[in-house]
C-alpha cells in the first residue's frame, strides 16, 4: 500500500493538512468521551459542496490510514453517484484500498443508511450529517438549543412527538428519528430511515458523525445504549415491507421502490446493494431476479 498520496494530487495524505486533522482528531476524541454531544469543530471548505458529505469526508480523512479498506455508500448503495465520487476522492488522495463489501471494510462512510450486514468490533461507521441538532426544527436558535442540551431539557421533543400521536394516532417521523444516547443526550441519527435506528443500539462498531456545514462532530462508542424516543403506550416501531426483495427475496431489510413504468408498475429491491448482491451470489432468488435488472445511472 502506498503510504503517501499519489504525487500528481499535490495534496497531503487524505487531502487535509496535518493541522486540520489534529483539530478534527481532538474533536473526535471528545465526541467519543461524551457520547451524543455535538462537539463544535472548525470545519474546513472542502472540494465538494456543503450538504454533500463534507462533514463525513473530514471525519474520514482524519481517521483514515494506509492500511484501511474504505467503503462508501449513499442510500445503502455503493454505486450511487455521490458514493462513487467520495470513494474516488479517497482512492486518489489517500491511495487506500476500497471495497463494496461491508465485511471487508474497516471504515464505512455512509449517507442515509446503516448496512444490513451487522457491523463488527473494529469497524468504524462514519455518517454524513446535514442537520446535527435534533431540536433544530423545534427551536431554530443555537443559543436556545445549547441551553436545552445543557439542562437535558428534552420536553420540546416529547411534546412534538406527542402532538403527532394526538393528531395521527402515531408518531409521524420516518427518518432522522431522534434517539437518546447513553441515557443523556438526545441525538439525530442523520436522515437514516428509522428502520435503521435499532442497529445503532449497542453496536460493536464505533459510530462517528460529521456535519460540515453546521460544524459539529459527534459519536456513539461501541456497546452504547441508543434508544429511540417513544412513549409507553406508543412504543417505537420500524417500517415493515409487505413483500421480500424482488431480486434476492430478503425479508426484514429496507427496500427501495423502483418505478418500472408510468402505469403504476413497481418493484421493491434491497436498498443495501452489497447485501442484495451477496445474497444473490449465495443463490437466493426473488420473484423478479430473472426479469430485467433495474438500470444503473446513465
Amino acid at each position: 500500500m502506498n503510504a503517501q498520496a499519489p504525487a500528481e494530487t499535490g495534496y497531503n495524505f487524505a487531502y487535509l493538512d496535518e493541522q486540520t486533522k489534529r483539530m478534527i482528531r481532538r474533536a473526535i476524541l471528545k465526541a467519543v468521551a461524551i457520547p451524543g454531544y455535538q462537539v463544535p469543530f472548525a470545519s474546513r471548505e472542502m472540494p465538494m459542496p456543503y450538504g454533500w458529505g463534507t462533514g463525513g469526508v473530514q471525519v474520514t480523512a482524519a481517521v483514515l490510514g494506509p492500511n484501511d479498506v474504505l467503503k462508501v455508500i449513499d442510500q445503502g448503495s455503493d454505486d450511487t453517484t455521490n458514493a462513487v465520487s467520495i470513494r474516488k476522492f479517497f482512492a486518489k488522495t489517500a491511495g487506500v484500498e476500497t471495497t463494496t463489501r461491508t465485511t471487508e471494510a474497516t471504515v464505512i462512510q455512509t449517507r442515509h443508511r446503516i448496512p444490513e450486514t451487522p457491523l463488527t468490533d473494529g469497524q468504524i461507521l462514519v455518517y454524513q450529517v446535514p442537520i446535527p441538532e435534533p431540536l433544530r426544527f423545534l427551536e431554530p436558535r443555537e443559543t436556545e438549543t445549547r441551553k436545552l442540551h445543557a439542562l437535558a431539557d428534552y420536553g420540546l421533543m416529547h411534546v412534538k412527538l406527542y402532538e403527532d400521536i394526538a393528531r395521527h394516532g402515531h408518531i409521524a417521523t420516518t427518518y432522522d428519528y431522534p434517539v437518546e444516547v447513553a441515557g443523556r443526550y438526545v441525538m439525530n441519527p442523520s436522515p437514516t430511515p428509522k428502520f435503521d435506528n435499532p442497529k445503532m443500539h449497542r453496536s460493536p462498531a464505533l459510530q462517528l458523525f460529521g456535519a460540515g456545514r453546521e460544524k459539529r462532530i459527534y459519536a456513539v462508542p461501541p456497546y452504547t445504549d441508543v434508544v429511540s424516543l417513544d412513549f409507553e403506550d406508543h412504543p417505537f416501531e420500524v417500517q415493515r415491507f409487505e413483500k421480500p426483495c424482488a431480486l434476492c427475496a430478503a425479508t426484514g431489510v429496507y427496500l427501495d421502490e423502483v418505478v418500472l413504468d408510468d402505469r403504476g408498475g413497481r418493484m421493491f429491491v434491497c436498498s443495501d446493494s452489497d447485501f442484495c448482491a451477496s445474497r444473490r451470489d449465495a443463490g437466493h432468488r426473488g420473484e423478479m431476479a430473472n426479469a430485467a435488472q433495474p438500470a444503473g445511472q446513465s
Partner: protein
Amino acid sequence: MYVAVKGGEAAIDNAHALLAHERRGPEEITEIAPDQIEHQLSLAVDRVMAEGSLYDPALAALAIKQARGDLIEAIFLVRAFRTTLPRFGHSDPLETAKMAIERRISATYKDLPGGQVLGPTFDYTHRLIDFMLAAGVAPPEPAEAEPERGAVPRVTDLLDGEQLIEAERAVDDAPVGDLTRAPLDFPADRDLRLQALARGDEGFLLALGYSTQRGYGRTHPFVGEIRFGEVMAEFVPEELGFAVPLGPVALTECQMVNQFHGNAEQPPQFTRGYGLVFGQSERKAMSMSLVDRALRTREFGEDVVAPAQDEEFVLSHCDNVQATGFVEHLKLPHYVDFQAELGLVRRMRAEHEAAREPLKEAAE
C-alpha cells in the same frame, strides 16, 4: 479627486470613458468576443437571461461584456432592453414532459422510467483547481449515446397516478398574470409569485430556501425531479388559430415534493414546490421551488412564522435590479436632506444639554 458640484458633466463623461478603457483592459490582451462569452461562460449567460427575464443568449452575452462581468449589471441591461420590446401575447404552456432531456435526475427514486441522466454537471466533481485549463489543453471527447425516445414522464405525474400528491389541474382560460405589466397586489396568486421568483435574485432565493432547511419554515423537501433540456415554445397567433413553433428554449425545471400531514379539508399527501428558469441553473430552480412551497404556507392552513413564508417580504425584496438600485442610490447626493438632519441633531443636542443643566447643579 472629488468632483465639485459644478462641472459635473465633464467629470461624468470622463468617468465613463475611463470605464470603457478599464473594460477593454490592456491592449496586448485579445479582446473577448460576445460569442466566446455565449459559448464558454454559458452559465453566466443563463443567469442573465433568467433574471433578465428575456431569452436571448447573444444579447445576454453582450450585456455581460458591457457590464465587465458584473451579472446584476448585465441583468439590468437586459431588463432595460426588454422594456422596449413590443409584446404580442403569451406562449402556450410549455410541455416540459416533451423536453429533449440533457439532464434528468430524481432523488426520490433510485431508478425510474426514462432513467437518471446525469448530463453536464459539476456534481461529483472534486473542486480542485484544474491548472490544465490555464494551458488550454483540449478536453477528452464526451461519450455519446442515443437520447431517450419519446416523452419522459415527470416524477410528480407518477405520484399523481397514485393520488399521493396534490392534484394540479390546468385552468385553460384563466388569464396569466404579468407583474411587468400590472403592479403587484398582495396577496398575489401563485402565477405572479412564480413569475417574481423566476426573475428573482439567485442569491436571495438561495438564502431563503436554505433558511427553510434550517428550521425557519421547514417544508420537508425532496427533489422529485430536476430536468434540463430544450422545450419547443409555441404561440397561437389569433389570425391563424393554431399553434406555430417559435423555437426551442433551454430550461431547468425542478419539482420539489414536500411532506404534508393534511388538515381538516385535505388528506395527508405530498405537496409541490415548483421552479422553472431559463438555461441551466439548478441552484436557482431548486431555491425557487423551496421558496414557492414556503409561500404556499397559508394555502395549507399552516402558520406564517418564517421570512421565506412571508409573501410580502419575499416578493418585495427578491428582485435584484430593484434592490441594487435602491441600495446603491445611497451614493447619490443627499445633502439637502442631510442638511436638514444636521440642523435637527444640533437642536436636539442643545435641548439635551439644557435639560441636563439643572441636574448638574443639583448634583453639585
